[in-house]
């Protein structure tokens, strides 16, 4: 087994993506807290991780758990993410179409999570399932339902 890379490499490569996904999932103002929680949890678990994992997928999975925890703690749906495109970092390219993100933000939590994980984070169904704590079929279903609803909203 090759040894794990220095954690700084994960930050350099994926911090911007994690932040972008969290802004999409919980809104800009709460993303910072979730970002900190995500990376502290990742640091805690990191030495025991096996390196055959997709490290980006692993980080985004933790991010989504933190976003779900956040929604549970708040006991409400996320504020729609109308301005998710206004990121100051020029490293991230997010869709600038506010309409889409507002519609995504208005989806029920599981569908929203599945859609963001698939299209903002480019995760496969298996990883989405792991992030949401459900079966790959259920993840596929949430994604399908979410997309169906989005198409209807935006048609």
């Amino acid at each position, binding site marked *: 087994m090759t*040894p*794990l*890379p*220095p*954690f*700084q490499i994960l*930050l350099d490569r994926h*911090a*911007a993506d994690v*932040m972008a996904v969290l802004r999409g999932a919980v809104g800009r103002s709460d993303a*910072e807290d979730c*970002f*900190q929680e995500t*990376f*502290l949890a990742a*640091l*805690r678990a*990191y*030495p025991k991780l096996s390196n055959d994992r997709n490290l980006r997928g692993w980080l985004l999975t933790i991010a989504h758990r933190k976003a779900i925890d956040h929604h549970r703690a708040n006991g409400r749906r996320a504020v729609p993410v109308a301005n998710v495109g206004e990121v*100051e*970092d020029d490293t991230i390219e997010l869709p600038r179409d506010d309409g889409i993100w507002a519609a995504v933000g208005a989806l029920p939590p599981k569908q929203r999570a599945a859609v963001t994980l698939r299209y903002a984070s480019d995760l496969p169904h298996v990883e989405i399932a792991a992030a949401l704590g459900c079966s790959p079929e259920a993840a596929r279903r949430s994604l399908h339902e979410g997309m169906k609803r989005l198409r209807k909203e935006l048609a």
Partner: protein
Amino acid sequence: MKASLQHLTDRAAAEGLLDVAYATTDSPFGPLLLATTPRGLVRLSLPGYDPDETLEELAARISPRVLEAPAQLEEVRRELGLYFEGKLRHFDLPLDWSLSKGFRRRALRAIDRIPYGKTRSYTQIATSAGNERAVRAAGTACGSNPIPIVVPCHRVLRSGGGLGGYGGGLPMKEALLELEGSHS
């Protein structure tokens, strides 16, 4: 994003999740990579070495929780700066010896006791480390010194006065000896 990362590094340090903190600093010879554990300075990598390789080695040998955290290395950078200006003769820094074992560690500890401006021979170092015949091994210990400059392996010369070797190249060894006023 920069503020978020800064905040994260601070929190990681406060929660004991920062096993290896690193930073780079300028020197008259080029950039140096510095790494510290909570115990002390563990690695100083000279110009000409690949910093990525050094960081990978630290991740494999100490802990993969390796983060860039210059704040943790402020005192090291300050003392090195003064040393290069000729204004500091003795580093007062906690060191982490965990990258060296056995005879090598004993040899490096003997090197660490060579005063500023003085030199020793590889034979003297072998003797201080407990085996006067292990001269080659003393040379290897110098060559594998994880904390050069601070642990002054540049002060170890051949018995006849020849320069011997140096990881940063012989011109750097000469320049350090000159800085310390011990180069004839």
